[in-house]
């Protein structure tokens, strides 16, 4: 919702494709080639329309980008996948580019141009960047993008809004979402470790660019608070929400009602600065 709203304001046009399915990530642990097949179908659909793909989730991004990388570098694999894709009248060629919206903003739109669009600089707001693993790792997929251990892209995107992006320990660490369905208590402990680190440096909010990381940090925040008798009350914003605020878009149009941890204090601070 916020990504669409911000894109509209920046003059970026999205086209929705109803035929897209799940990108195939859940199939990866069962049968890698089945995952590639589902990924290739989605890529082929975008190719047919001559479109590139913008993703909003880290897991979708890595699944599609890695599938593309593997298919483009292994003719035999590509042939096998295409034999099966032909059964539904599709073919993977490798012409569609895949990028996460945040990466697109960083590389294509650039933080400098974002700064020009900022009408309400978020000075005084401390926003902790959470990259999520699959935005920057593995190196094999993201070699030409950001550093797997010390990433900077999201920090720069945050700073472009006028907000401060503080350092905190283990910024590049995992949210735990990958094992939520396997062992919930371990997954939530991983989430807790990061929430503790963020709380210790003192922030107004955390910035996520992956819906699943957001589920961990804000969807499960209350549960973690209750289980471990602690308190965070840290709102977790999807980056376009923060950007939208800085661009002067009203919070109602940026999906703030849907945030599980309400960003009331943050919004009050932003709006107070305006007066």
């Amino acid at each position, binding site marked *: 919702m916020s990504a669409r709203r911000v894109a509209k304001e920046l003059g970026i046009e999205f086209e929705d494709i109803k035929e897209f399915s799940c990108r195939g990530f859940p199939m*990866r642990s069962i049968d890698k080639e089945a995952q590639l097949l589902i990924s290739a179908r989605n890529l082929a659909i975008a190719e047919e329309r001559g479109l590139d793909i913008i993703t909003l989730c880290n897991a979708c991004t890595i699944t599609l980008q890695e599938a593309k990388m593997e298919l483009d570098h292994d003719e035999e694999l590509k042939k096998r996948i295409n034999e099966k894709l032909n059964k539904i009248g599709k073919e993977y060629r490798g012409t569609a580019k895949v990028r996460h919206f945040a990466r697109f903003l960083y590389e294509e739109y650039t933080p400098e141009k974002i700064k020009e669009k900022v009408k309400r600089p978020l000075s005084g707001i401390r926003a902790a960047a959470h990259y999520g693993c699959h935005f920057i790792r593995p190196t094999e997929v993201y070699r030409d993008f950001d550093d797997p251990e010390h990433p900077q892209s999201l920090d720069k995107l945050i700073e472009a809004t006028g907000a401060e992006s503080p350092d905190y320990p283990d910024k590049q660490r995992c949210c735990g979402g990958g094992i939520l369905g396997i062992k919930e208590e371990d997954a939530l402990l991983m989430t807790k470790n990061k929430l503790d680190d963020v709380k210790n440096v003192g922030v107004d909010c955390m910035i996520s660019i992956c819906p699943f990381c957001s589920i961990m940090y804000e969807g499960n925040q209350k549960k973690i608070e209750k289980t471990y008798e602690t308190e965070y009350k840290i709102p977790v914003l999807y980056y376009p929400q923060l950007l939208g605020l800085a661009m002067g878009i009203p919070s109602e149009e940026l999906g703030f009602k849907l945030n599980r941890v309400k960003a009331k204090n943050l919004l009050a601070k932003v709006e107070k600065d305006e007066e």
Partner: protein
Amino acid sequence: MKDVIDVSKLDRDFKYRVIEEPGGEGLLSCFACGTCAASCPVREVDERFNPRRLIRMAILGMKDRVLQDEFIYLCSGCYLCQERCPQDVGITELMTALRNIAVREGYLHPSFKAQLEFVYKLGRLYELTDFDNKKRQKNGLPDLNPVIDEVKILLKEAGLSKFVEVRELSTHSFLDAQFL
């Protein structure tokens, strides 16, 4: 508790099978330095999960333990170990390879089985109802197709339809093994 490894029960060819599997190629390069275990955020919260130990078990040929246990499913897939591994073992990909081998041996974790069933039937991981589409409309988002049939055709082609009904994962846990 000390765990005794019964050599007669080891499958010495298991390691060769793993290196044949896409993603498993680097297994034998491991020199057990422990960088993976030290980097692992799962290991930090649950000492029973240990990538180095798992790699040793695979090399030794402890096939049943590796494939039937919860070990290989506890990897969150964050790639930190893989990035830091001095031997390029490709540990995260190795976990995927082991999970794929386990499925072919008939062991499918209930969580993945549930995910497979959703994707098989609906083409997506969550059921999308009219109510969801109404909610999307209210927020200015376009409708989505509740079912993408072509995914079922592809998963049948990939031979996964038969796995919708397979053996459940063993409830017996080896997580307390104390070796290495």
